[in-house]
């Protein structure tokens, strides 16, 4: 027998209940409305599990196409995908690296002897413009650049390389600049004060401190570029993606399967390369 019955009458309902019911209703309503907007066919989806047609489609993937002719084609396209990514990233580096150097405030000659903020308004203005351009370049998804470029330079790897170069120069420029800024400034300043040129101070003072990080980030971006390159292929920029698109349009399930496998191998290879490179460099 409870000798201590609480004299605090518990509320008849849970105060959180109202909130939860409202949240649940909103959720249901949202899902319903969104299903309408996206023409989401829930019923068709459930039926698909018992429908023979989707199963036949899946089965058409096996066995993966393995004729010598096709395998040669697949390997060639895979290499071209890597090549597109490498070229694109290389150009992006050519642009991003110098821009990052310019963006590094510590190298500003006009700031020697004064605080960093006191560098001349010209150099500050120029930095602002460069920074905004980098942000703009990397905000527009590379697919959109590719769409544009395909109409300017035609189908093929050129559009892909340029699209990657444009987007990734923005990324590399910004992150390189951040890496440069995060480095210990003392060695650089001492070189500058001795009268060394900006390039010398950069090469002997700044670069050695952060080469690990630079390599690490660049390799990571190279991996991303390889993936991007596959995606860009879908809009005509060549490589594995373009071949996948073609095979899909021809309903050649077994070819698509081989290409997907090649893609998985490619991604694993890129991953391996990046790990090895980072280990070797350190």
């Amino acid at each position, binding site marked *: 027998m409870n000798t201590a019955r609480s004299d605090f009458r518990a509320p008849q309902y849970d105060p959180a209940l109202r909130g939860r019911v409202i949240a649940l209703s909103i959720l249901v309503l949202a899902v319903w409305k969104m299903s309408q*907007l996206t023409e989401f066919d829930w019923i068709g989806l459930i039926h698909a599990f018992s429908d023979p047609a989707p199963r036949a489609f899946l089965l058409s993937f096996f066995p993966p196409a393995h004729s010598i002719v096709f395998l040669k084609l697949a390997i060639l396209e895979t290499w071209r995908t890597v090549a597109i990514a490498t070229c694109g990233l290389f150009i992006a580096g050519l642009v991003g690296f110098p821009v990052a150097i310019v963006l590094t405030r510590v190298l500003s000659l006009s700031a020697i002897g004064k605080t960093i903020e006191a560098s001349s308004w010209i150099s500050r203005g120029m930095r602002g413009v460069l920074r905004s351009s980098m942000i703009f370049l990397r905000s527009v998804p590379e*697919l*959109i650049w590719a769409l544009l470029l395909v109409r300017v330079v035609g189908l093929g790897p050129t559009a892909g390389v340029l699209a990657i170069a444009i987007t990734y120069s923005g990324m590399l420029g910004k992150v390189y600049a951040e890496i440069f800024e995060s480095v210990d400034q003392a060695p650089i300043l001492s070189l500058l004060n001795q009268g060394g040129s900006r390039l010398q101070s950069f090469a002997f003072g700044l670069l050695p401190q952060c080469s690990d990080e630079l390599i690490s980030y660049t390799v990571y971006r190279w991996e991303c570029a390889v*993936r991007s390159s596959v995606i860009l292929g879908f809009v005509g920029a060549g490589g594995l993606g373009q071949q996948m698109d073609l095979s899909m349009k021809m309903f050649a399930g077994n070819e698509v399967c081989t290409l997907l496998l090649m893609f998985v191998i490619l991604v694993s290879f890129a991953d391996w390369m990046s790990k090895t490179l980072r280990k070797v460099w350190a």
Partner: protein
Amino acid sequence: MNPRIVAIFSLLMMVVASFASLDLNLSAFFEPDAMSSMGRFVSEFLHPDLQSVFLYKVFLASLETIAMSALSTLIAAFLGLLIAFKARGVRPLLNILRSVPELVWASLLLIAVGLGPFAGTLALALHTTGVLGRLYLEAIENQTEGPAFALSAAGASPAQVFFFARLPQALPQLVSYTVYRWENNIRAAAVLGVVGEGGLGQMLSFHLGLFQMNKAATVIAATLILVTLVDSVSDRIRRYLG
């Protein structure tokens, strides 16, 4: 020999080989024809089409894109929870789902279900399930065992342990991941439209195909605004979660 030198040398070789094996005509970009087209495009770009009829269409397309991203994220969250609960032998499936890029899923599904946002939503849902499933799994595994152990030792079933111990512990982390994926999915949804999956992407591809740069500019601007909006909302939610 210094391994770094070897590495640099091999990398340079790779770059050279890459350029050599593609027949790039980068100079085509700088030819007068191309330059003047680009110039024309850029000038048209700077005068986006702002007529109300067109803006309304853009607005509808934006709604479609948001719906694609949100619905796919919700579905993925639900499936991800199921998978995180099941937990065993589920990693290979998750890896397949997340390694295949959304666009590839989308193209595959196009064949299966036809053009339109349904394929895009489904593709995003599949890919995101792979991503969220793995994140959920790790988040739940990283929680302290105490509460789950106590309930299990008191005779609760695995499902009950999940709801009353594991899930509540990991919930803030799970919500944070989910909101972060929604941010990503907005970009992905916009892009998927390009292959015919509705929303802003489809509009963009359409108008670019017709070289209507001013209309394309509006669509791109709308995309950027949408992405920024979702980014800031999601940032706020994640900061609120602490």
